[in-house]
């Protein structure tokens, strides 16, 4: 198991390196000059040159990459030259907001997706199953930014039940949770559909298994069969799905953070790219890639821990 985890981590390191190389290539291939954008029309050519020098943009791209990567290995992501703040600080103070958004999205998707999938499986072929099927596909099909805009219009503007912008008052958990409801729903809604479809399919397969038939033959109550035996097995693929889903939720968070004017990594990167703020883009991509890789490794390990068959396959 440990060997397997180490293998996954090694693969993760390769993914991080590749993602950073891709990011560097893409950001530097698009035209634009961060110094001109940052300093505005009143800056003289000398001032722009000085800023480019401070940002290290006077060096070849490969050297910038090597310098960034070398420093990153020592935990230093450089300094954001406009505000003179360490890039790591800028990124890390935004990360918790995105994590909260993703956890909120997962909560929505798990809390609704698993019961819906169970109900659909138990009522297989019936009216309820069909309704849940239609709802699930609809939730998958609607883009997160559409959910964000319409939920904001309905629940914040028209009904005024929930706040429209921001992340809530610092230190006030109730306010922060209140501000999290709509954005996390926007991020998690599609995954309610995915998870309900996944749980339904797994449940159907599990309910046909011989040990379930045996349990029924022994007269165990149906709810016990479903909760204790079937659901536990049926939910395992959901963990792997969520590992991948977190990556998608990271990208969905960009829309949610912009529409709801929330702080977060997505908005930070979006704004940084639009002004070619390379140190912030690099730092944020590195941190999010590391996070994504770790989540997937953790999901794989968790599946291994929960399922003895997977565990034995490692050995």
């Amino acid at each position, binding site marked *: 198991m440990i060997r397997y985890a180490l293998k996954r981590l090694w693969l993760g390191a390769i993914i991080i390196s590749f993602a950073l190389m891709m990011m560097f290539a893409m950001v530097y291939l698009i035209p634009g000059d961060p110094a001109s954008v940052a300093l505005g029309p009143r800056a003289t050519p000398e001032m722009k040159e000085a800023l480019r020098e401070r940002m290290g943009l006077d060096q070849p791209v490969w050297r910038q990459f090597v310098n960034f990567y070398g420093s990153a290995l020592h935990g230093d992501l450089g300094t954001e030259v406009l505000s003179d703040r360490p890039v790591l600080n800028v990124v890390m103070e935004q990360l918790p907001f995105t994590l909260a958004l993703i956890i909120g999205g997962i909560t929505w998707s798990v809390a609704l997706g698993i019961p819906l999938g169970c109900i659909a499986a138990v009522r297989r072929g019936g009216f309820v199953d069909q309704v849940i099927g239609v709802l699930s596909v609809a939730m998958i099909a609607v883009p997160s930014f559409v959910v964000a805009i319409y939920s904001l219009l309905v629940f914040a503007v028209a009904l005024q039940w929930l706040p429209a912008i921001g992340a809530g008052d610092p230190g006030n958990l109730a306010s922060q949770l209140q501000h999290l409801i709509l954005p996390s729903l926007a991020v998690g809604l599609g995954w309610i559909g995915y998870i309900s479809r996944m749980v339904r399919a797994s449940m159907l397969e599990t309910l046909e298994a011989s040990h379930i038939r045996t349990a029924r033959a022994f007269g165990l109550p*149906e709810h016990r069969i479903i909760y204790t035996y079937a659901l536990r097995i049926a939910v395992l693929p959901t963990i792997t799905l969520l590992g991948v889903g977190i990556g998608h939720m990271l990208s969905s968070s960009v829309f949610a953070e912009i529409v709801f004017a929330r702080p977060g990594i997505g908005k930070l990167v979006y704004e940084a790219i639009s002004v070619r703020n390379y140190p912030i883009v690099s730092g944020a991509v590195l941190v999010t890639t590391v996070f994504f890789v770790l989540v997937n490794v953790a999901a794989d390990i968790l599946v291994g821990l929960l399922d003895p068959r997977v565990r034995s396959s490692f050995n």
Partner: protein
Amino acid sequence: MSILTDTRVSRRGLLAGAGAFGLASMVNPKISWSADGPILKVRSYADIQTLDPCFRLAAPEGDITSVIFAGLVVTTPGESWGWRPMAAETITQLDPMTVAFKLRDNIGFTDGYGQMTAEDVKFSIERIADPANKSPYAGDWATLKEVEVKDKLSGIIHLKQAFAPLWTSTLPTPSGTILSKKAITELGGKLGVKPVAQSGPYILKEWLPKQRTVLVRNPDWKYEPGGFAEIHIHPIEDEKTGELGYEAGDLDYTWTAVSSISRLKQTPPPKTKVVEKPSLAFVWLGMNQDVAPFNNPNMRRAVQYAVDRKAVVDAAYFGAAATATGIIAPGLPGHREKNLFDYDPDRARDMIAKEGLAGTTITLDILNKTERLTAAQVVQSNLQDVGLNVEIKQNDSGTFWTLGAKEGDYWKKLQMIISRFSMQPDPSWATAWFTRDQIGVWNWERFSSEEFDKLNAEGMVELDPAKRDVIYKKLQDLMEENGNYVFLTHEVTGVMYRDSVAAGLKPNGEPVFTDFKPA
């Protein structure tokens, strides 16, 4: 089985749900109060990156520095541009090149940096003007000779030459802000995002990046206090998000999208004032005279005749903005009453036919904003009507603002652009970007006129408004006669705020936070 399959909603469950929704609706208060008084919640279009007036990057930073650091004078809100003393007890222009000031006796800096003195005024002004500091705002003090300290509170600002924008876009802006010499020196010459030695009517209490900036009344400010105990400034880039935040009750004041103005005026949110203010900014269609086909002056003139400016502006701004007669907005010296060349498609067709340029395809570069795209599409249709094809190329801001730079190669392909510059209330701010030394910097049309450069320099030091009016009108005539420009609009600024707020707005709709008061 029954637990999972029984999905009926009970009466008790329904009542519980309704109760929960009712409770939720009470959680979002519409009036915010702190322990010390009312809180004003406003939208700003960007977060701060520095609070150093010398190196400010955008207007939202200026809005904040103008209230946490006292300047000699401050812009007054209202319908016309004006100023009033702030840190200065008296300030007088003795002659075109000399300004005498005396500071108020009891303005203190926070963090134990003592009283504001004339030495601080000298330090702050000369710091911006000093070329070694490379401030983007050095031009605001372009003709400064020195600041002479007479005594603890008095001094004289000496200029090398008269400087017309001094009282409009230098002294009342953050370029006239006074910082503590001791504090900035201790910080190594530069202020970051953590303000030290604040001195204005408000002080910055808290900055949460990308979330909000909280200003609170300065307890040591001895003069007219700010109207609100706290001002919460929320950085929201998107105007529509700001509008929705306002309509949801999370904001008390916001700028609106131009496209929303007519809707909001017709059906404003409850208890809301919707205000439309003329903007100083200018939007134009530009043609690069160093690149074919616009190296042909007749082609440039044909485009000037071909564009129906009213149709362009009506479509792009939903009828809320008027067409421009130049780059200098109404109310400023140099504003022209009419254009030299107006919509005449028949004439345009004749000229294009004579030059044998019918069927030519032109690229039009724009910033990827909705109103620019709409404007570009109407231009495309207008030019199609006279036999020219237009390909619209949308660019993000990082790309767009470098298109005409001499450092790159794209200026050799750049044919037409729709661009927009923001402005300060002095005509010199409009014309400064079209001189020959700006070619490849901000003069992307590569308009080149010796006469223009000469007159532009004269306008900067001429103090007589009547003479300046003549100079700046002539400057715009030269731009239009050369054919590089189709002046489109000055846009319009939409603002909405609660009727419980008396908003302190500059004539162009920008906020003066010190002058926001409860109504």
